[in-house]
């Protein structure tokens, strides 16, 4: 971590103007990022519908032919790539023929349910990661002995591990949370081993000159200095926890989450491809929202550290 306090120029800038400049720069950055996001989404849609326009199957509205693409490539048919509007429209259809509930409402409920499992896994996993990293940075011996196993644990494919966990702990939400935990603890452990060592060595000398006990060095120097690493790993962990929960739900026998929904909709893909696409979009949105929340907390927490933090 670069320390902005140390890198600050010796010039005399009024603190007020510096603060203003930083805030203004922040606003520009956000709006630029928003525009960039819109641009990328637009580009992807352009290729999607552009491909269908050139290579797809005839476009129809209420049975009437409105466009006949000049070329045919099977990949661009309406089953593989349904029209964007068909997908978006899918959100506002009943989630199942004859049901009251609209698909978006149904998906929102499933997403919330999955989020609960993912969130629990996220909490447990990051706590475990933090504790492991804390132990490892205080003991080279334990680090040497156990970090290889931490790494090896992640080479086990989750699709092999999930059934193992479920057969051991039963088909329950607990098993799903465990799978999410398993995916979360790793990035947090690895990042925090680094983060807890990222303090300025001169700051350690300073603490030693106060005869600071180890505990105070940890809470007042190592941990705060590691926060940028912590948040970076939490952002990875947030998305990983959702992947873990979704993957765990199907073998875990959980009926109410996105994982189940995705399995069901993919079984009936041929009759309603847009539904699976809607479920995929819902999963992606869930991941984005979770990620965004962490990023928000990060920005608030690290705000005082200056532009570089």
């Amino acid at each position, binding site marked *: 971590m670069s*320390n*902005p*306090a*140390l890198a*600050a*120029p*010796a*010039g*005399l*800038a009024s*603190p007020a103007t*510096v*603060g203003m400049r930083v805030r203004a720069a922040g606003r520009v950055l956000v709006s630029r990022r928003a525009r960039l996001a819109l641009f990328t989404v637009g580009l992807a849609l352009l290729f999607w519908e552009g491909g269908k326009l050139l290579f797809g199957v005839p476009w129809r509205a209420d049975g009437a032919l409105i466009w006949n693409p000049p070329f045919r490539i099977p990949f661009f048919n309406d089953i593989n790539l349904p029209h964007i509007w068909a997908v978006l429209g899918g959100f506002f259809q009943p989630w199942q023929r004859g049901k009251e509930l609209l698909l978006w409402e149904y998906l929102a409920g499933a997403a919330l349910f999955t989020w609960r499992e993912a969130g629990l896994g996220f909490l447990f996993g990051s706590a475990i990661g933090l504790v492991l990293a804390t132990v490892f940075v205080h003991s080279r011996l334990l680090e040497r002995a156990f970090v290889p196993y931490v790494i090896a644990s992640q080479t086990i494919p989750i699709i092999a591990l999930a059934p193992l966990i479920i057969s051991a702990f039963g088909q329950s939400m607990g098993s799903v949370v465990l799978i999410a935990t398993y995916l979360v603890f790793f990035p947090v452990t690895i990042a925090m081993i680094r983060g807890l060592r990222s303090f*300025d060595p*001169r*700051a350690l*000398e*300073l*603490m*030693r*000159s*106060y*005869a*600071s*006990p180890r505990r*105070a060095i940890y809470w*007042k*120097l190592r941990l*705060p*200095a590691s*926060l940028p690493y912590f948040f970076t790993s939490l952002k990875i962990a947030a998305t990983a926890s959702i992947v873990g929960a979704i993957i765990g739900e199907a073998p875990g026998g959980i009926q109410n989450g996105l994982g189940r929904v995705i399995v069901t909709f993919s079984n009936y893909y041929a009759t309603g491809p847009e539904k699976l696409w809607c479920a995929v979009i819902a999963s992606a949105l869930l991941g984005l929202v979770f990620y965004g929340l962490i990023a928000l907390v990060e920005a608030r927490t*690290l705000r*005082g*550290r*200056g*532009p*570089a*933090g």
Partner: protein
Amino acid sequence: MTDNAPVVRLDGITMTFSRGGQALTTALEKIDLEIRRGEFVSLIGPSGCGKSTLLRIIGDLIAPTAGEVTVNGKPATRARLDRDYGMVFQAPVLFDWRTVQGNVELPLEILRFDRAKRTARAREMLELVELGDFVRHHPYQLSGGMQQRVAIARALAFEPSILLMDEPFGALDEMTRERMNLEVLRIWEQTGTTVVFVTHSIPEAVFLSSRVVVMSPRPGRITNIIDIDLQRPRNDATRETERYFELVTAVREALHHPGSTGSSGSTSSTSSSGSAAGPRPPSTGRLAVEGAVG
């Protein structure tokens, strides 16, 4: 302890840095030095002569290969555990996640002052370094000189009996540095702490100190100790007195011809001081570097 008992006593300090059991550098050899209560002692010498190493040994941040450090009548480690030291480094080393106030409170938290006392004490120290209006700012919002003043406030906050400063103003421009020098003297006079001050700047050493310890490199040794008998309180006018120029010249000659004169209160020679006719003595090579930073 009587008033004349040394605050710091160095007895045959030798420091050899080794790697893999093989001696690499003899940074210090047989250093003997006594520093009395309330003294302001500067260590000056060419780069690599072991000034920082000596300061870190006094502060018990590293242990010497041989020799003994006695501080306030006890071993250095005991003194450190008793919180006898305040340290100021060349860089301010502020915690960027804390406000200015929070940074000054850091040692007070570790020393378990209660909250009210912490707040009051930190405020008082920040007033002392004239940063009372910046308590809520974060380090990145301060200039380099202001950050260094925060570091000084932090070092003084728990009233250590010894202040160890390692080139605290090395990164500042000449103007700011002179202002900071006045400030340090004012604080030193108000608090009565003992200061050990490492510097590269001859004018700075002469202006601040009661004694200047001149060192030479390879191996690091004390070659000269020059008493600075300039009147106190010192101020800008001090820098223009005849005696000031004489002492600057004396320190410079001691640096350039190590061991030519013994340690004494008198300067080695006054005849050469006539050459320093300008308002400011000729600068050392180091000043060019500082100018680039400022």
